[in-house]
């Protein structure tokens, strides 16, 4: 049916846009607050999926989403990834903070380390974590329930983050540091601690994105890199350090990617993020909503 293709693009574009938004917000905030492009961001996403897989015992793996253990595993995985984020800051990033480039290399090495650790424990093959099964019909196409849950989940979390940034004290402090680091310091805000919280928040968001979306597909050790590239593409598109930019950029990427995927070919869809990066950097490095100077 001719009409279903555009529905597919819209639906899957929205679902992916929501997930990307979780990833991009975290990535963008870490940049906005600390000037850091965290290369391990994708790894945080992947690790959460693997942690869920790991904590399962075989019985509940088969029981899937009906087993309460699965949900505890998700909570545990989320907590662990938040801790990993915090430790990355305390142990690694903090000590090399003065030189941007060292932070980038150290997070790059961290990403490899996490990928290899995963290969060590689980082997270099694909796995998957259980998803909610069944499809729902919507305007002529069948959408798996897991995708619907992803969308609802991501919208709830996005809204929560925006609320958090505006209404909760720590959220305000993070925004203050992102806007003007020195002024925030003068106001008595501990910028280092805010950066740590931001990294932990971004790990949390990446983790939630993983929990929502990884069940729709496979788990593979190298999946972090694609996530990193997409997050970078979105923040370049939307403007580094800008939350609204990240959200809007995420949906643009979601729709664009699915458009190319449906109408041109799935394999070409993977090129969209990078093409967007290159084009944006040439045309408007600041991004659509960007405040900070890229160059």
């Amino acid at each position, binding site marked *: 049916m001719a009409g279903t293709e555009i529905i597919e693009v819209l639906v899957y574009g929205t679902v992916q846009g929501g997930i990307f938004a979780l990833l991009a917000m975290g990535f963008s905030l870490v940049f906005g607050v600390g000037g850091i*492009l965290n*290369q391990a961001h994708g790894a945080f996403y992947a690790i959460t999926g693997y942690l869920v897989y790991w904590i399962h015992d075989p019985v509940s793996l088969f029981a899937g989403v009906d087993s309460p253990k699965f949900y505890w595993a998700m909570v545990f995985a989320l907590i662990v990834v938040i801790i990993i984020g915090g430790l990355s800051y305390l142990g*690694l990033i903090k*000590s*090399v903070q003065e*030189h*941007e*480039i*060292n*932070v*980038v*290399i*150290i997070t*790059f*090495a*961290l990403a*490899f*380390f996490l*990928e*290899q*650790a995963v*290969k*060590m424990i689980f082997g*270099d093959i694909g796995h998957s974590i259980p998803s909610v099964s069944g499809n729902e019909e919507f305007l002529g196409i069948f959408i798996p329930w897991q995708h619907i849950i992803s969308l609802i989940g991501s919208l709830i979390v996005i809204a929560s983050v925006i609320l958090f940034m505006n209404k909760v004290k720590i959220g305000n402090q993070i925004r203050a540091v992102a806007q003007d680091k020195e002024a925030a310091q003068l106001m008595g805000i501990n910028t280092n601690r805010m950066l740590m919280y931001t990294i932990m928040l971004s790990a949390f968001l990446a983790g939630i994105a993983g929990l929502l979306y990884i069940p729709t597909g496979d788990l593979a050790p*190298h999946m972090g*890199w*694609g996530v*990193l*590239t997409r997050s*970078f*593409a979105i923040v370049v598109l939307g403007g580094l350090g800008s939350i609204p930019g990240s959200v809007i950029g995420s949906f643009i990427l979601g729709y664009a990617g699915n458009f190319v995927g449906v109408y041109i*070919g799935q*394999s*070409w869809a*993977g*090129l969209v*993020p*990078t*093409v967007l*990066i*290159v084009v944006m*950097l*040439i045309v408007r*490095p600041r991004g659509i909503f960007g405040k900070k100077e*890229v*160059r």
Partner: protein
Amino acid sequence: MVKSHIVKKSIDDFWKRIPKKIKLSVKSLPTALNGFMGKLRTFKGGLTLICLIILSIVPIFTKNPFYLGIFMMACIYSIYASSWDFMTGYTGLVSFGHAIFLGLAGYGTSVGLVFLGFNWLIALLFGSIISVVIGVLIAIPSLRLKGPYLALTLLSISMILWSLFLMGELSPWLRGSQGISQVPLLSPNPVIEYITTFIIMVLSLGIMKMLGSAKFGKILNSIRDDDTGAEASGINISKYKILAFMISAFFAGIAGGLFAMHNRGVDPGRFQPLYSFYPIIMVAVGGLATISGGALGAFIFVFLNEILIELAPWAPLFVFSIILILIIRFSERGIMRPAIERLKELWDVLLGK
């Protein structure tokens, strides 16, 4: 009539000047030789000479293709790592996507050998030139990018090439995920293969070192350290950045072509972030902004890899990522340099200084 008189005079002057030039160069030969011998007598020069001599006589001790192959890979990675160092260490253009050049030249060389019937040298240069051309195309929009943005952009481009080359539809020659195989070896005789690779390594590193120490290198360093200042002094930083890109891409391409020939093939996996990680860890261990650091790191890495891979397939990268984290965390210039400096003191004592 007047004109031909002037022309004749300039021609006469030209011929007169040639003997002077020859006289000057002959006169300066002893000085040049002196300078060279002087360099040899320095610690670094002597050490380099010893290493080169040892490496060149390896085939006397073993003709086993497996062991020679390890040394060959070390030479190839030396060129690769040094090319990365040239861009990142000397010029400050951080590259997380050097696999771009490794892969493109690998494919270029393979295509040249398998489909176009070139001989190995032409194919090698063909691959490297493709690498340079694409390098320039990438460099031009990247000029305005600061450190981490450039790094991530290059990483993204390497990933786009990874998925692009995985697609079967791109070209029947490139054969999608299978890659190009049955690429002929540089030479059926492993000893000749090794010696040729070794000579190419010495030439490549030598050229890069010369460029790095000359005025060109100093300009690159000034761009790395303070590019606003450099621009203010009248240096055309765009031109030099592009040149640095080209040189780095060229030698990374040479490494890529040699790799393809030694591996007897190339596949899209050559573009993985993995291969972009290798030069970083090698140069971090060996020393940034020194061409020899890349070589040192490469040899250490290749030998360590051979040992570790016996334990488990994931072991080498696992260890390397930890090493890199520790190096960056605790020392900025590469752990090997302090060791070399300590050795240097020993050398001075031996020479009676």
